[in-house]
């Protein structure tokens, strides 16, 4: 019985490997390899889809793998891709600080490549052929500006804000907070909580918001989340406590959840960060580099506020 099971399992694995191998596209199309640090993140899905679509449109085949936010793993993936004969590379870093060795390796290969979404470390910024990324600090600045705008429209003596952040140690999270602090410094906006991280998890954001409502109750005037998922969690806590409409809401992202709340008039505004544009631009810029054209060193994807009136101007996911 056990032998039969082992043989069946081996056959299943063999068939899977052979069929997966059979999917490899033949022909002379150039091959792009992409290591995505955030393969399974909600933002990753539309971005990677946009990369695939644009690559297909321009006649490339593309292989995208999960870098699992692990620089060492991403470096190994690129080394394997170069050995496998890929013609061009796309690098979505997991974190700013870990980018220098990978940037240096990619340059040493002599292959065309671009960096995507996460801004690389300042020490290697000028070594990147082209980087397609939003200015993360600018996204944070927009969150700060929108906080000020909210309190201009809803004057208050206290201006108390609960601010829910992403992951501790993540450069993206830190850069957003740097931007927020830069703008609200010198204003009388009061961030009530001291660094609460929900790790981009709606249920953790919900728990943090519940605890903040327990502690501060109706003293909270505005709740701000660094992404749409955490906003959803915080919203659920606010809804369960009966505070919808009693405090303002603000977040970053183009998730459908965000659009729904903008339409309902419950969300004051969101800050745009468009995965479709980013993914598409990455392949376009890579194509230009392959063809020997000159490209900008940093192609900053547009970021700015989205209000209820603007929702039709954006693509949502």
């Amino acid at each position, binding site marked *: 019985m056990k032998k039969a099971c082992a043989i069946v399992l081996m056959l299943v694995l063999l068939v899977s490997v052979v069929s997966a191998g059979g999917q490899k596209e033949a022909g002379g199309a150039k091959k792009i390899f992409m290591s995505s640090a955030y393969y399974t993140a*909600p933002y990753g899905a539309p971005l990677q889809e946009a990369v695939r679509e644009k690559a297909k449109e321009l006649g490339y085949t593309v292989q995208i793998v999960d870098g699992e936010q692990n620089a060492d793993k991403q470096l190994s993936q690129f080394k394997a891709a170069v050995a496998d004969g890929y013609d061009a590379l796309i690098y979505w870093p997991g974190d700013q600080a870990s980018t220098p060795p990978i940037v240096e390796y990619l340059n040493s290969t002599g292959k065309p490549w671009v960096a995507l979404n996460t801004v690389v470390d300042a020490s290697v910024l000028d070594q990147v052929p082209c980087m397609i990324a939003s200015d993360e600090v600018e996204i944070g600045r927009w969150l700060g500006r929108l906080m000020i705008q909210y309190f201009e429209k809803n004057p208050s003596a206290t201006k108390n804000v609960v601010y829910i952040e992403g992951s*501790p140690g993540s450069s993206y999270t830190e850069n957003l907070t740097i931007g927020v602090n830069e703008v609200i410094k010198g204003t009388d906006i009061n961030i009530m*909580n001291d660094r609460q991280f929900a790790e981009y998890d709606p249920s953790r954001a919900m728990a943090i918001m*519940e605890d903040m409502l327990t502690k501060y109750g109706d003293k909270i005037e505005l709740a701000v989340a660094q992404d749409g998922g955490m906003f959803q969690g915080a919203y659920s806590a606010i809804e369960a406590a009966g505070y919808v409409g009693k405090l303002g809401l603000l977040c970053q992202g183009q998730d459908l959840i965000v659009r729904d709340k903008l339409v309902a008039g419950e969300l004051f505004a969101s800050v745009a960060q468009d995965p479709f544009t980013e993914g598409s631009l990455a392949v376009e810029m890579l194509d230009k580099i392959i063809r020997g054209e000159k490209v900008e060193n940093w192609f900053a994807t547009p970021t700015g506020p989205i209000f209820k009136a603007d929702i039709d101007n954006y693509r949502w996911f």
Partner: protein
Amino acid sequence: MNRTRVIDIIRSNGILLVILLLIIVTGITERNFLTVGNLLNVLRQVAVVGIVACGMTYCIIGGAFDLSVGSVVSLAGVITILNINAGTNEYVAVAYGLLAGVATGVINGTLISLINGRSSEAFIVTYGMQVVVASIALFPSNGLFIAGRVSDGFFKSLGQGFMPIVIFLGIATIMQFVLMKTKYGRHMCFIGSNMDVAKMSGINVKLNRISYFALSGLLAGIGGIVLCSRVTSSNPTAGLNYEMDVIAAVVVGGTPMSGGKGSVYRTVVGAVIIGIMSNALNILGITAYHQQIVKGLLIIAAVAMDILNKQISLREMTHAKVYVG
């Protein structure tokens, strides 16, 4: 009360005493902490981890682990929300979510039973299943958050008000009863203590072990559905690392990782301890960095106390034998 008795109480309830101290300090400092509303809040927050931890307790007592529970939490949520959004009856959508959990559990249990696996094999098999199920959860949702188009009704009620607490404590009560008062529960402890002897005693070890994993999968499914109902959305990575929180609840509660004994009641206490600690630290305004340190130390302290207790008990037994002899 003599000195030995006091030491015994501290030995058996050390973690509980530390938490009691935290509750008293927070209660004095923050007037909103010791309110009924906040305590219900804590129970609601720990309900999902607690429900899943009840299933994990059975697995651990039965001499195994189930690392796939986090992925099942994600998968059950995704399946349920997608079905509800597609217009499926809410009861049927919930049943699909639960079915996914049970199916994963049965596959885990069957594979482990086929290879006659102990806890180390269970660790590897369920880890493999965790990766597979996590990927399956990404397919139907294309990796995206899914906002639930949920009206007030059965599904939404599962995560609102007292319902998560009722589900959590209800499940825990039934499972504690089964564990303590039935032959099935006694067999579980026997299998966890010594699988070979249990087999020689005529217990159907394979079927029993499959049932622990099936239950664990079912409860992870229930946890995933309650979680989705609470945030009225699903996230294909919602259950990421949940298994660690769940194992922490079981261990902090005092069920030993070596299997063969433990209790669901203790797991409830473990989940509540972790919940109260997070809540108190949030309310006290302690930053997330420090919170993680405290949480880690709590888990280490729980394991250390368990080992210490075992060593003391062993010493006492040895001492008693020498005395009798």
